[in-house]
C-alpha cells in the first residue's frame, strides 16, 4: 500500500460537450505527503484544476466523467467512497480555498458566523465553534478580530478576505489544504503576506498543501515540489530548483523563457519635447481622494509605465486623460491643448490620436460584431482616415501586423483565444493611427507565454511606428522589460519616478523597495534572496 497522504494515480477526466468529448486530464499521477507543499503549475486549459475538483467531488457528472484512475487518501480510494462519506471528509480532512474570495463568501452573513458554520456543520457545539472562529481570525491576522466577527465580507479588503477564506478552510484542522490560485487576484505585497501565512500555518499543523498556480514565482517562493502540466498531461515533476536549472521538457523550458523580467533594460533617450503634460491632476469621489495631484510628462515615442497596487489611482489617470470620467481639477495638455476642457465634439476629433487597450479583451470587444466590423469601426467614426474601398485591404494589413491572418476578419471575438483577442484589440487601436496608446493592464489577464508574445508585439509596434505607450501595470517584471521610464504610485500619489534602471536598481522610496521585494521571481535562488530582503524590510 501507499504511504503517501494523498495520491492520484492514472486519473483521466473527460467532458461531453456539443463538439464531442474533451479530455481535460489524461492519465495523470502525483502524490502529496504530510507537511509538504506541492505546486501544480500550468496555463489556462492545461487541466491543472481538474484533479483538485475530482478530489473535492466538485466535477459535475454529466457532462464530466472520470474514466480511469484512483485518488487515494490515506490509502482509501475516494472515487469508490459514497457521497455521504466524501461529504464528511470535505471540509474536515480536506479543504479548499479559491481564487476569488468575494465570490466564495456569502455576502448576507457575518464572517464570524460563516467560519463557525464550517465547524457546526461537522457537529461541533455553537460556543465551541465561535471560540474556534475567533482564534482562527486572530491567527490569520485579521485586525481587531472580535469586532470583525460581526462584519460582512464586503467590509474587508481582498487580502483580508483571502485570510478569512483560509481561516474557514482551517476551521477543522484539515490534513490537506488545496489552494486554487490563492493569490492571483491579490496585489504583490499582499500576495507575499498570504503565501507566508500559508507557510506558517503549514509548519504549525503539518498539513499537506496543494498549490495550484500559473505563476512560476509562486512555485519558486512556496513549493517543495512542482508538477508541470500541459494539455491534460503531466510533462515534468521536480523541485523548483531542478525545474529552473535543468528543465528537460520543451514546454517547461518555454514557460521559463517566457517569464518576464530578464531582458535588457531600456535606456530612455532625451528626445523631443513632451506630447502629454499632466499637471496636478485630481479626482475625488465624494470625500474620497482617488488621485491627489499627479504631474508627469510624456515624450513622443516613449514608453512610460505606471505601476502601483489596486487603489493606487493608476487606472484613474488613464480614465481622466481619455475623459471616460471627468477630473476634479488639474490639466492634461496634449500637444499644447488641454484635453480636460474640450467639448465632447472637439474631444471626438482628438480621440484618434490617443487610443486605449483594455485589460480584458473578452469584454472590450463587442461580441455582436465581426473582427472586420470591430476594426473598421474606427474609419466609420473618423471617415477622413481611409476611403471605404480600401478598408478590406487595410484590415488584412493590420491583422497581419498584429500576427493574425487576414481570413480571421470574418470571425467573431468568441472564436479566438484570450491572446488573439488582445491582438484584435491592439489592431483596433492601430486602425486610428494614434500617437499614444494607453495600455490599462493590457497583458495581466493573459497566460505567461502569451503575455510574452503580446509584449513582443507591442515592442515591435513601438519600434516600427514610433507610438508612445502609457503602460499601466501591477506586474513589475513586465514593466522592467518593456518601459523606458516608470512612475510608482501609492494611494493616489506618485511616490517615485525615474528611468527603469533607476527604479529597479536604486529604488529610493521605501514603498518602491517593498514592492520590489514582494515581487516573485521564477528563479528559486533569486527568490530566496528576495525573501531575506523582505524580512529585513519588515524588521525595520
Amino acid at each position: 500500500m501507499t504511504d503517501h497522504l494523498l495520491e492520484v494515480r492514472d486519473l483521466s477526466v473527460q467532458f461531453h460537450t456539443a463538439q464531442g468529448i474533451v479530455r481535460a486530464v489524461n492519465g495523470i499521477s502525483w502524490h502529496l505527503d504530510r507537511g509538504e507543499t506541492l505546486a501544480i503549475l500550468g496555463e489556462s486549459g492545461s487541466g491543472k484544476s481538474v484533479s483538485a475538483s475530482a478530489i473535492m467531488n466538485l466535477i459535475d457528472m454529466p457532462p464530466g466523467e472520470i474514466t480511469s484512475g484512483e485518488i487515494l487518501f490515506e490509502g482509501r480510494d475516494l472515487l469508490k467512497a459514497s457521497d455521504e462519506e466524501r461529504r464528511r471528509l470535505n471540509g474536515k480532512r480536506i479543504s479548499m480555498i479559491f481564487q476569488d474570495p468575494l465570490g466564495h463568501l456569502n455576502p448576507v452573513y457575518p464572517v464570524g458566523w460563516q467560519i463557525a458554520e464550517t465547524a457546526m456543520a461537522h457537529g461541533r457545539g455553537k460556543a465551541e465553534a465561535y471560540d474556534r472562529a475567533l482564534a482562527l481570525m486572530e491567527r490569520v491576522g485579521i485586525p481587531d478580530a472580535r469586532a470583525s466577527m460581526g462584519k460582512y465580507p464586503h467590509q474587508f479588503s481582498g487580502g483580508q478576505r483571502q485570510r478569512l477564506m483560509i481561516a474557514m478552510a482551517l476551521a477543522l484542522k484539515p490534513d490537506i489544504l488545496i489552494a486554487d490560485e490563492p493569490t492571483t487576484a491579490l496585489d504583490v505585497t499582499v500576495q507575499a503576506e498570504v503565501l507566508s501565512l500559508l507557510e506558517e500555518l503549514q509548519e504549525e499543523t503539518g498539513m499537506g498543501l496543494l498549490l495550484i498556480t500559473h505563476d512560476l514565482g509562486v512555485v519558486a517562493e512556496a513549493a517543495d515540489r512542482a508538477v508541470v502540466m500541459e494539455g491534460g498531461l503531466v510533462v515534468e515533476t521536480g523541485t523548483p530548483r531542478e525545474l529552473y536549472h535543468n528543465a528537460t521538457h520543451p514546454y517547461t523550458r518555454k514557460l521559463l523563457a517566457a517569464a518576464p523580467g530578464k531582458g535588457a533594460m531600456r535606456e530612455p533617450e532625451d528626445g523631443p519635447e513632451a506630447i502629454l503634460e499632466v499637471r496636478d491632476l485630481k479626482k475625488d469621489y465624494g470625500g474620497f481622494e482617488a488621485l491627489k495631484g499627479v504631474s508627469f510628462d510624456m515624450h513622443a515615442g516613449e514608453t512610460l509605465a505606471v505601476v502601483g497596487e489596486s487603489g493606487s489611482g493608476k487606472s484613474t489617470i488613464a480614465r481622466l486623460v481619455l475623459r471616460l470620467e471627468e477630473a476634479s481639477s488639474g490639466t492634461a495638455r496634449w500637444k499644447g491643448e488641454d484635453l480636460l476642457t474640450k467639448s465632447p465634439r472637439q474631444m471626438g476629433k482628438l480621440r484618434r490620436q490617443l487610443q486605449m487597450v483594455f485589460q480584458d479583451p473578452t469584454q472590450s470587444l463587442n461580441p455582436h460584431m465581426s473582427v472586420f466590423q470591430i476594426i473598421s469601426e474606427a474609419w466609420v467614426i473618423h471617415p477622413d482616415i481611409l476611403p471605404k474601398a480600401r478598408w478590406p485591404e487595410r484590415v488584412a494589413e493590420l491583422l497581419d501586423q498584429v500576427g493574425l491572418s487576414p481570413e480571421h476578419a470574418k470571425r467573431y471575438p468568441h472564436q479566438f483565444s484570450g491572446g488573439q483577442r488582445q491582438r484584435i484589440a491592439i489592431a483596433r487601436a492601430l486602425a486610428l493611427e494614434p500617437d499614444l496608446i494607453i495600455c490599462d493592464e493590457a497583458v495581466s489577464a493573459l497566460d505567461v507565454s502569451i503575455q510574452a508574445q503580446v509584449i513582443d508585439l507591442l515592442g515591435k509596434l513601438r519600434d516600427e511606428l514610433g507610438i508612445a505607450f502609457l503602460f499601466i501595470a501591477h506586474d513589475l517584471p513586465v514593466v522592467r522589460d518593456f518601459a523606458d521610464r516608470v512612475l510608482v504610485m501609492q494611494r493616489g500619489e506618485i511616490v517615485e519616478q525615474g528611468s527603469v534602471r533607476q527604479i529597479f536598481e536604486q529604488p529610493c522610496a521605501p514603498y518602491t523597495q517593498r514592492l520590489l521585494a514582494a515581487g516573485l521571481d521564477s528563479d528559486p535562488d533569486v527568490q530566496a534572496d528576495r525573501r531575506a530582503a523582505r524580512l529585513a524590510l519588515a524588521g525595520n
Partner: protein
Amino acid sequence: MSNSTTHSTGPTDQQAVTPEAAVAAPVTGGPSGLRRILRMLVADKLALLSALFLVIVILCAILGPLFLAEMASDTNLRARNAPPFELERGFAYILGGDALGRPLLARIVMAARNTMLIAAGAVAGSMLIGSTLGLIAGYAGRWTGEVIMRLADVIMSFPSLLLAVIVLYMLAPSIGNLVLVLAITRIPIYLRTTRAEVLEVRKRMFVQAATVMGASRRRIIFRHILPVILPTLLTIATLDFAFVMLAESALSFLGIGIQAPEITWGLMVSQGRAYLTNAWWLAFWPGLAIILTTMSLNLLSSWMRVALNPTQRWRLEIGGKKND
C-alpha cells in the same frame, strides 16, 4: 470547469482554437444573408413550423377579407351552433357554425386581420416608444432619466384596463384608438426593461472602447447597446402579444372595443362564452388561434435570440444538435 476546458486554448496562441471556431468558420465564409437565415431556420424544426404558421396567419389577414367577407357575415339560421367536423353544409362549416349560423372557419380567417392589426400595432407601438424612452432614460443625464421614469410610474399607477375604459369611453371606439390605448398602457414594461439593461450594458468595456475611439452617442446606442438588449425586448414583445389580444377582447366584451359586425378572435371568444356548456366550439377555435399564434411567436423569438447572437449561432449552424 467544463467551461474552462472547452474554451481552453492550449499553450500556443496561434492556432485557431475552440471547437466552435472550427465549425463556424467555413459557414461564415459561405452563403450570404437570406440563405443562411433559412438554413438556420430549417435547423430548428419548431421555429420552422412556427414561421410557417405565422405566414399562413398573415396571408389570412391580408387575403381573407377579399374572398370571405360575404360568407363570414351571411347568417344561416339552420346552421345555428352547428357542431364541427360535419361536411354536409360545405367545407366552410368544418369548424362548425356560430350562434347566428355563420361558418366559424370563415369568421376566424376574417378576424385575423383586425386581430393582427390591433395586436401588432399595439405591441410595435409600445415597444418602439417604450424602448426609445428607455434608451434615453438609461443613457442621458440623471434629470431626463428621472422625469421619464416618473412618467412611466404615472402610467403604471393606473390599472391598465381602467385607463383603457376611460379613454375609450371618451373617444370613439375604433381600431386606431384601441391600438393607441393598448400601446400606451404597455409602454412602461419596455421602458423599464430597456433602461435597466442600458444602465448595465453602458458600463461594459466595449462601450467604453467605442467612446475612446470617439464614437458618437447615436452610434454607441444603436451599434453597441441596442443589439445586446434587442433579444430581451423581442421576447417581452412576443409574450405581450397574447396579453394585448386578450385585453382587446376584454374591452370588446365591455362594448368599448371592436364593434360588431367587425370581429376579432378575442371578441369571438367572449361571444362564445355564453354557449360554452352546449357549443364549446364557438369559443374554442378562436381561442386556439390565439394560443397557436402567441406560441409560434414565442418559439420564433427564442430561435431569433440564438440566431442573432454570434456566440450562440453555431448551435443552429451545426445542424440543430442540442447542447447539454
